[in-house]
């Protein structure tokens, strides 16, 4: 809980610790499909959206590899409506056949709109299975293929629900203009009687250490060649996670970053370039992606990126440059906590990682990283034989 007396609103965030990594390899896309079904009515309330709108509320949700997050804001006087709605769908869903049929169609359209009907839309559908051979991060939250969604049955849905949608697998956070004396009894009233589910044993297949570089070349009807490079990186709870995040910022956070300045502005090897991390709980990916200048071939483009990586593994970064990316991280944390909803989401996320209060130590963890750590971590990340490269070629005369 977090209080803010300056707002007329309240925000509620519920995080369920279930994501795409918990899916059966033959039934992928399920966690995300489920997010849609959570709006199809619960055991005592036929419509989720209507009563929320009656209460002046607005809501949404998202699913990623590790968790599913539901959030809403509403005028503070109507906060109890949120508890009524959220507790009922935590207790049990209506499991309507129509809702399942329609949401399967909606998700199929989402698949087409964002992944197939879109230039470069299928990049992650290709890159992730290239980088992961065992761990469930090999598929995307939307699923491996549309057929997995189409085949989902009511039994699958019920099984998934009873396994993951339980109080012992959820985190509730309330922020805004609220009073704990009033809110705590309300939460106990609505959520207290919901039975816990079975304790979850999570054993995700570990990804064996990569020994050799992997490549994949595809040809698509797109205007420009694009290059995607991915390396495995430390998990969210490792100290080196922070170092790796800073490395991605040195390379590409802001227009003064290395890759943008050297490869887009000075030399124009690329028209666009980015380095980023997936930010997953288990070992995630460090990705560099770029769109090639039409006069440049893949070989030279990749070589230029490698050159920039070598600078990181051979030389120490200047103090000032390191301070720059640390300052940016600090500012971003401040910006993300401005709205009551942003606070509710962040607090839930840190509670999932360890405990909500840890959000206050986040800046320090980044500040503690030294220049030597950056070089050391860059050597580990970009070591020989650890690269996954996708060459995404533009069809000629298309």
């Amino acid at each position, binding site marked *: 809980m977090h209080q*803010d007396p300056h*707002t*007329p*609103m309240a925000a509620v965030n519920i995080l369920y610790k279930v994501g795409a990594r918990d899916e059966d390899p033959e039934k992928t896309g399920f966690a995300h499909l489920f997010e849609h079904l959570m709006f199809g009515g619960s055991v*005592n309330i036929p419509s989720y959206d*209507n*009563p929320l*709108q*009656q*209460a*002046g*509320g*607005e809501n949404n949700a998202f699913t990623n590899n590790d968790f599913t997050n539901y959030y809403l*804001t*509403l*005028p503070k*006087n109507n906060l109890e*409506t949120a*508890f*009524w709605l959220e507790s*009922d769908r935590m*207790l049990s869903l209506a499991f309507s056949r129509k809702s399942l049929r*329609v949401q*399967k*169609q*909606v998700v*199929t*359209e989402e698949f*087409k709109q964002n992944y*197939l*009907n879109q*230039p470069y839309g299928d990049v992650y559908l290709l890159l992730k299975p290239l980088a992961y051979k065992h761990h469930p991060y090999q598929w995307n939250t939307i699923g491996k293929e549309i057929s997995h969604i189409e085949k989902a049955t009511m039994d699958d849905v019920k099984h998934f629900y009873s396994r993951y949608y339980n109080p012992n697998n959820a985190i509730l956070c309330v922020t805004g203009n609220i009073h704990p004396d009033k809110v705590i009894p309300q939460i*106990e*009233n*609505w959520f*207290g*009687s919901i039975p816990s589910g079975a304790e979850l044993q999570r054993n995700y297949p570990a990804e064996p250490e990569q020994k050799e570089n992997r490549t994949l070349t595809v040809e698509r*009807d797109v*205007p*420009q060649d694009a290059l995607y490079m991915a390396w495995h990186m430390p998990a969210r709870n490792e100290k080196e996670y922070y170092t790796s995040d800073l490395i991605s910022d040195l390379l590409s956070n*802001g*227009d*003064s*970053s290395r890759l943008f300045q050297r490869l887009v*502005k000075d030399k*124009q090897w690329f*028209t*666009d370039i980015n380095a980023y991390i997936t930010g997953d709980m288990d070992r995630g990916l460090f990705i560099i992606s770029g769109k090639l200048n039409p006069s440049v071939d893949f070989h030279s483009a990749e070589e230029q990126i490698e050159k920039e990586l070598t600078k990181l593994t051979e030389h120490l970064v200047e103090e*000032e440059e390191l*301070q*720059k990316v640390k*300052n*940016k*991280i600090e*500012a*971003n944390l*401040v910006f993300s906590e*401005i*709205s*009551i909803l942003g606070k509710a989401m962040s607090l839930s996320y840190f509670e999932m990682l360890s405990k909500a209060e840890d959000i206050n130590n986040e800046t320090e963890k980044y500040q503690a990283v030294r220049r030597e750590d950056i070089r050391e971590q860059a050597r580990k990340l970009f070591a020989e034989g650890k690269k996954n490269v996708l060459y995404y070629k533009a069809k000629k005369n298309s």
Partner: protein
Amino acid sequence: MTTYPDRNHAPALGHAQILNIQEPESFTLDNGIPVFLLPANQQEATRLDIVFDAGSSFQTQKLQASAVNKLLKEGTRNKSSYEITKTLDFYGAYLEPFSGKDKAGITLFGLYKYFDKLLPLIFEIISEAVFPEEEVRLYAERKKQQFTIQYQKVRYRASMEYNELIFGKNTAYGQKLEENDFDILCRDLLVDFYQLHYQPHNTYFLLGGKTSPELFKQLNDTLGKIPGNGQPFLSEPKVYWTQDEEQYRYVTKENALQSALRIGNITLERSHPDYPKLYLLNTILGGYFGSRLMSSLREDKGYTYGVYSSIENFKHGNSLTIATEVNAEHTVAALIEIEHQVELLSQHKIPDRELETVKNYLQGSFLRYFDGPFSLADQFLKSHSLGLNFVHYKEMLEQVMDLTTGELLDAARKYMDFKKMKVLVAGKTDELK
């Protein structure tokens, strides 16, 4: 003790909360620039918006307004593009250019503790930008590349074509970008536009988040010194939009999995007494997740991931638009359903229960729009451009809450006529005529 609450009934709703928004205070810098204040001192972040009458409706060549806006920070008399971006990045700040049909400008987000370090830089960007030849060329090249990618998306094609369809060809609002527009862009064009429109008599500032008297002084010592050219810009009278005869436009994209639909018309000015009715009708039709279009096209039929209708406000004309991307196979069925939903509004009174839901939803939405220092700033920018005060929203919400089903039926018959709406389809068009 475990309690078992009554889950079959919704908890009683609380009292409706009053929308109580303070009009911002303001002061004037030495050079005459008005500064509006939306302080929120519980935050560590500060935001400064600098807004000029320099949107695309002022340009004599396509891309001129947006290119000037984007390239402001790519070089000044004394600083290179790299030095500027390095300073911004070092202090963790974001400088976001924005340009629309009427206004253009920049928003600076940063930590309060570093804000004084950034103001001298902003002074240079606003008053001493030089638009280096090389930066202009690079910009045009990159934008052209991005354009060719965007151009393949039915969504982008639809929005572009629809803009011309609804505002009319050769009008200030109906300009349509083409690939060769990028080749014409040059430094002289940008310098002309910059010198004419980025002037102190042509701007206002908005300062929000954490502020202090010291910051006001620092603002005056830097941006209060921006020199003007002393020649107020007088805009030639121009045609912002026309009513062309063309009503349907179909753009074919082979093998498209989805079709993008845009349907709408020029609609009421914000100051029109019936505007609140139109606003509420739009919300019912497609302005929120529980809307009729969303319930029917997404939740009932599964044709689409999303469908919305919205009213866009510009200084010289508003548009009402229904927008969606649908499964290509259902292009025709979706159009028929949209027509049906629009016509229903003029055929039957809105059920009381639905009207109550939407009114309550809007009550909450208005509170949300004005919640938090940065949302408040966003609302201020929108309304100030249209010449509206915050009290306008309070009054409009009160009017919305009093509307009756009879009044709405009359308004729908006047302003929601599908037969007068323009229709744009990009994607699968072979079954259309």
